[in-house]
């Protein structure tokens, strides 16, 4: 199971949880399961999220792999100038 940590306002949307364990092998699966687990988080998972998977930031990457013991941070998407 990957450990998913909520940063920023995602924690509020996850009912105050700091982290949760989710069984998923891809980002898409993880987001789907997170949405089922936290219905108020679900509408925010389509756009505007980035995932740090074991420290490496992935944006718009539904099929990036998640390993069984991955440490995942759900965070806002980042752009730049």
């Amino acid at each position: 199971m990957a450990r998913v940590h909520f940063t920023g306002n995602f924690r509020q949307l996850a009912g105050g949880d700091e982290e949760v364990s989710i069984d998923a092998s891809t980002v898409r699966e993880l987001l789907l399961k997170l949405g089922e687990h936290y219905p108020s988080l679900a509408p925010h998972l389509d756009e505007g999220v980035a995932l740090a998977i074991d420290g490496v930031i992935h944006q718009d990457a539904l099929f990036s792999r998640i390993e069984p013991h991955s440490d995942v941070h759900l965070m806002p998407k980042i752009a730049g100038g």
Partner: protein
Amino acid sequence: MAAQNGGTTNGGTRWIGTRPVRPDGVDKVTGRARFGADLHLPNMLVGKVLRSPHAHARIRSIDTSAALALPGVKAIVTRDDFDDLPSEFVPAGEMLINYRDVVRNVMAREKALFEGHPLAAVAATSEKVAKEALDLIRVDYEVLPHVLDIDEAIAPDAPLLHEDMITAGVEPPPSAPSNVAKVVEFAHGDVEAGFAEADVVVEREFSTQPVHQGYIEPHSCVASFAEDGQAELWCTTQGHFVVRGHCAKLLGMEVSKLRVTASEIGGGFGGKTVVYLEPLALALSRKSGHPVKMTMSREEVFRASGPAPGTWARVRVGVTKDGRITAGEAELKYQAGAFQGSPVQPGCMCAFAPYDLEHVKVTGYDVVVNRPKVAAYRAPGAPQSEYAVESIIDELAKRIGMDPVELRLKNAAREGTRAAYGPTFGPIGLVETLEAARSHEHYRAPLAPGRGRGVASGFWFNIGGETCATLNLGEDGTIALVAGTPDIGGSRAALCLQTAEALGVDVEKIRPLIGDTSTLGYTFLTGGSRTAFASGLAVIEASKDMIGQLCERAAKIWNIPVDAVEWADGEARPAGANAGEFDPLTLADLAGVAGKTGGPIVGRAQINAQGAGPSFGTHLVDVDVDRETGRVTIERYTVIQDAGKAVHPSYVEGQLQGGAVQGIGWALNEEYVYDEYGRLQNPGFLDYRIPVCSDVPMIDTVIVEVANPTHPYGVRGVGETPIVPPMAAIANAVEGALGIRFTDLPMSPPRVLKALEEAHIPEAAD
């Protein structure tokens, strides 16, 4: 090649790390290069914009009849020419964008929300006629009270910009609307417990003024709509694919019917990631049947294109006597301008990013005010929050009697540190930049009496994203490289070097160009310091694709299996003794017979680059302060930054130097001056003073290289981080010189004089 300051070693690579003349260089030193305003088309009209003279006003009616009757006027567009779009956040260009706001920002609908807000646009046969026509448009306004500053905007009885705006991010949602669009929070640990462990806690409030990106080339475009609904757009932009998406949406077009070509771009720094004139020019061209050129005056650039936000911050940091930072807390309020979407979120995430903190809490407020909607400016959001934090770190170092570099080193984020914004850092180079600072001759040089020395560090994430590239192999073995990221600062050179390295060919054999939106797949904009990294990954992938095809051709020619062919030093060779005895085939050999061996050879890549390496820098500055005039002079400046791997070191140095000087302007001079009616008083380079050549010394650079593991050559973005440290570094230096800590930017002569006067009334400060 002339020797440069800075410099890197060129270990193990042939092209990466060298400094060839950039491939687009001659065009740029001879005046050939065509920028946004340099295109002339036959039958072209000139478009001009009517802008609101009021900071906040309801628009009762707009009467264009007299203007339309003027000979030479071919079309006028107003709010009635653009369909309203529903509130819907979509990822496009600069983070999330709400098309309901975009359509209102390019052309006011119900209300004018800032001085300079477009109300109508005219296309006419000459600029003179277009301007006359603007004078004939009658607008009936109901002038409303306005708010310019955060305090005014969040006051309980403040006039509202958007009567339906309910603050997001607060539970339960507030029942009444306000000018606060959003509240964000990043926290881990328990800050109060952290502060309880501290021996010294410093808390201060800071403010910064809006500053303009200040690109020397104003916004400009030429739109040409054909009768069959197909259109072409030429414009100066950081991302023509993003422009295409926005314009197609605003004009109700299919994206494939709109071909956007990026001109050479005369600076952007984040400010050319959004659309202003482009949808108006397209609408005017559609209506008039002529090509329409629109160019902003410098005054319009200041009044109506995006500054970086003015901000307010309260920061509190605790430290033990032996220099361990126990907790950090910040509250940040950023001006968004007329529509929500300030970079307060990245500001919050970056505030404490350089430090390994167990307890941290940052809260941010996105506040709308009657100013132009802010746009990205180099590391958007980070300079303001890191300025506040880095000022306090300096003060803490003094309070506990520790060297400020030492204090930073003791607490520096490193590989494995949990970043203040959540995830764990991979390999990063902050410690290396601090160590380089500590051992730099600048840091140890004696300081003349009365002068001050300051140090500060800075962080930016960097991004990857959707990117395409094509390598077309010519019949003589030379290569045309097509990239989709506009080249602002020499990135074509960096892409050619990476291609040369990957293919093993001479860099001179590669000619790059930036393809239009019909020649490549969707490519995200040049921004987020992503181009050398993400377009770099794309050209490396395209090179691999081409090498695969080259090896196949060689295998066919030699009649051996393809896995018995290897590519090395720019030629196909039999892989090992068992593969057979054949003379190597060079790129030119294979190119010459491409037609006969299977057809043209084209290497392609279409990727979504992940794993951009975060970037850290540390700056050193010496200042002198004229006690009579209040002028702060930069006597010496050194930028130290981790580049992962400097592909073309001269252009990396250039990014570090340019970012530092923009930061010097931010720290010392640049600010917007508004009158009581909310009108900008200094919309020109005379009164909005960016640093000139005689204001600054040489900017020394040290490039540190801690490889980014997700890039084959270790490249990290470098463009944004250098603007982060200067404000705090200079404030820390001024404090060293005068014993006065400036918490409000800019430290302009009048403010410095005032502070000096105040400080001298009682016996000198203790």
